């Protein structure tokens, strides 16, 4: 993913290159157009965060209001602001603490399975939930975790609870359910990349370790884990880099006003305020705040990682 190796391009060289590679430049044109229209024009459109936007006047025609929308957001709606920021960050922190190591552990354990038929069967099954749509996943969660659903039945039968738990309307249960179902869905799929990294480790290292008397645990700790560390770090940077982006889809499908207290995140708030209540400028302001903080996280984690581990995105 690195895009370094800077080459200086002067104008004369560029014209020559344009002539020589005119086919290639012609080919890439639609792709550049796509990025321009659907990614860069919206970035340009972010200025509506500083405007009193009305669709009739358009992006350019709407009058500037400076930081009015941000003031509205941070001062008048501060109760909601801190709630959505807290929820966004907490859901992510839980997901990083519990969700991030899960596929790594799964890959390490799977790597210890020597029966290749069993191993392949486990892998095939474990990828499957990744291909089920979010709507269906949430549909299954709603059914299994309802008051008279399967989970409450099992908990009751095992004597863990006396009264059925109202999972979907209790704010305290939202995060565990969100993160837990995410692990369930992505455990197998997420492990692919680590399994691939494990298979790239030089087998001589293991042979040498066995001669030195290392058991399976020591091999896993001192060879396999360090061997996949660069992959882990890259995945970690990417994960931390999207800390302000909780998947809108699943929260949107899973939450209801009863659990807004713990479930409402920045993107769902932007959707409700910006699109449902049609306050475009306000929605764009909240979104801009989110994008900037997120961008900061990417830069920061990349910087820290480059400094301490020599692994980085750029």
């Amino acid at each position, binding site marked *: 993913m690195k895009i370094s190796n800077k080459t200086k391009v002067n104008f004369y060289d560029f014209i020559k*290159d344009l002539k020589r590679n005119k086919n290639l*430049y012609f080919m890439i044109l639609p792709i550049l157009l796509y990025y321009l229209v659907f990614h860069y024009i919206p970035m340009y*459109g972010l200025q*509506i965060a500083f405007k009193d936007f009305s669709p009739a006047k358009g992006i350019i025609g709407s009058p500037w209001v400076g930081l009015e929308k941000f003031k509205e957001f941070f001062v008048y709606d501060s109760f909601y602001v801190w709630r959505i920021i807290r929820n966004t960050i907490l859901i992510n922190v839980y997901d990083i603490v519990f969700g991030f190591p899960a596929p790594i552990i799964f890959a390490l354990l799977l790597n210890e399975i020597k029966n290749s038929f069993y191993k392949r069967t486990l892998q095939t099954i474990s990828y499957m939930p990744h291909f089920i749509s979010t*709507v269906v996943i949430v549909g299954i969660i709603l059914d299994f975790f309802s008051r008279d659903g399967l989970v409450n039945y099992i908990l009751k039968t095992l004597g863990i609870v006396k009264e059925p738990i109202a999972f979907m309307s209790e704010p305290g249960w939202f995060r565990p359910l969100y993160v837990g179902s995410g692990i369930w869905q992505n455990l197998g799929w997420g492990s*692919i990349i680590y399994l691939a990294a494990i298979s790239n480790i030089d087998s001589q290292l293991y042979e040498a370790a066995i001669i030195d008397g290392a*058991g399976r645990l020591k091999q896993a700790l001192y060879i396999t884990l360090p061997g996949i560390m660069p992959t882990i770090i890259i995945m970690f940077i990417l994960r931390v880099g999207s800390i302000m982006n909780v998947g809108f889809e699943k929260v949107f499908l899973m939450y209801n006003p009863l659990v807004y207290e713990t479930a409402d995140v920045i993107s769902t708030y932007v959707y409700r305020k910006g699109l449902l209540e049609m306050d475009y400028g306000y929605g764009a302001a909240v979104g801009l705040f989110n994008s900037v903080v997120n961008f900061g996280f990417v830069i920061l984690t990349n910087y820290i990682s480059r400094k301490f581990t020599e692994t980085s995105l750029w």
Partner: protein
Amino acid sequence: MKKRSISEALFDIMNYMFLGVLCFSMLYPMIYVIFASLSDPIKIMAYRGPLLKPIDFSLKAYKLLLDYPMIWIGYRNTIIYVVLGTTINMLLTTIGGYVLSRKNLKLKNPIMFFIVFTMYFSGGMIPTYVVIESLGLVDTIWAMILPGAVSTMNLIIMRTGFQTVPESLEESARIDGANDWVILFKIMIPLTMPTIAVMILFYAVGHWNSFFNAILYLRKRELYPLQLVLREILIMSDTMYMQTGVSDAEDRLALTRLIKYAAIVVSTVPILCLYPFLQKYFVKGVLIGAIKE
């Protein structure tokens, strides 16, 4: 090799069992839903707990579900979005990946930066909506296709795939007078079929499961993809219009649940049927795109 110690044997047993149980917990919800959907509505209503087979086999839920026109409309629209969307995705991704994999392109790095930057910073939901709206795409099928016409991640994977093709093949083709289009379609694509297959799978599954763009950009029900219809049935429990002939309240409740199970099966089975055939390519595809320069 020396004999395995007792603790290692114990670890193996625990590990085999633990992973077995874990994977069973991933499979079982689907099995449960399938069994439940094939059960008798009243019996399943009274039944609690795990299912090991359907209770009094019945296809009533499927009959009611498939009599509901929105399911077919959703199915039709989703197929249109998958086919048209994936075609456009693949055209742009292969062409873009090819261009960006050429070494002698002077502007390659600036273009890469232009593209990759969008992975880290975006205008966000509202400005994007304003752009889509002002282009007149709201309530057209293009709102489901154009905003996601290229996935940056997939573009990078494709580019890496093309980079693995030996340069000498391209050179000899050029000597024979082949231009870039010929090289791309006659040499590059045939040689990277596994990567192409993975890309098709990723895009197609993405379109099949997508509902976010539909929520944002579609109001007309006749454009709804299957996932939005499913959302009405599964999340909003909106199944009453399917049960006009059912009068008893208890029956209605039972059927609502059952129709949900049937809807899950009907919408998920096509994807899961496709999946074993393409599974062998996953690892390769994910690996190529991941860490390599």
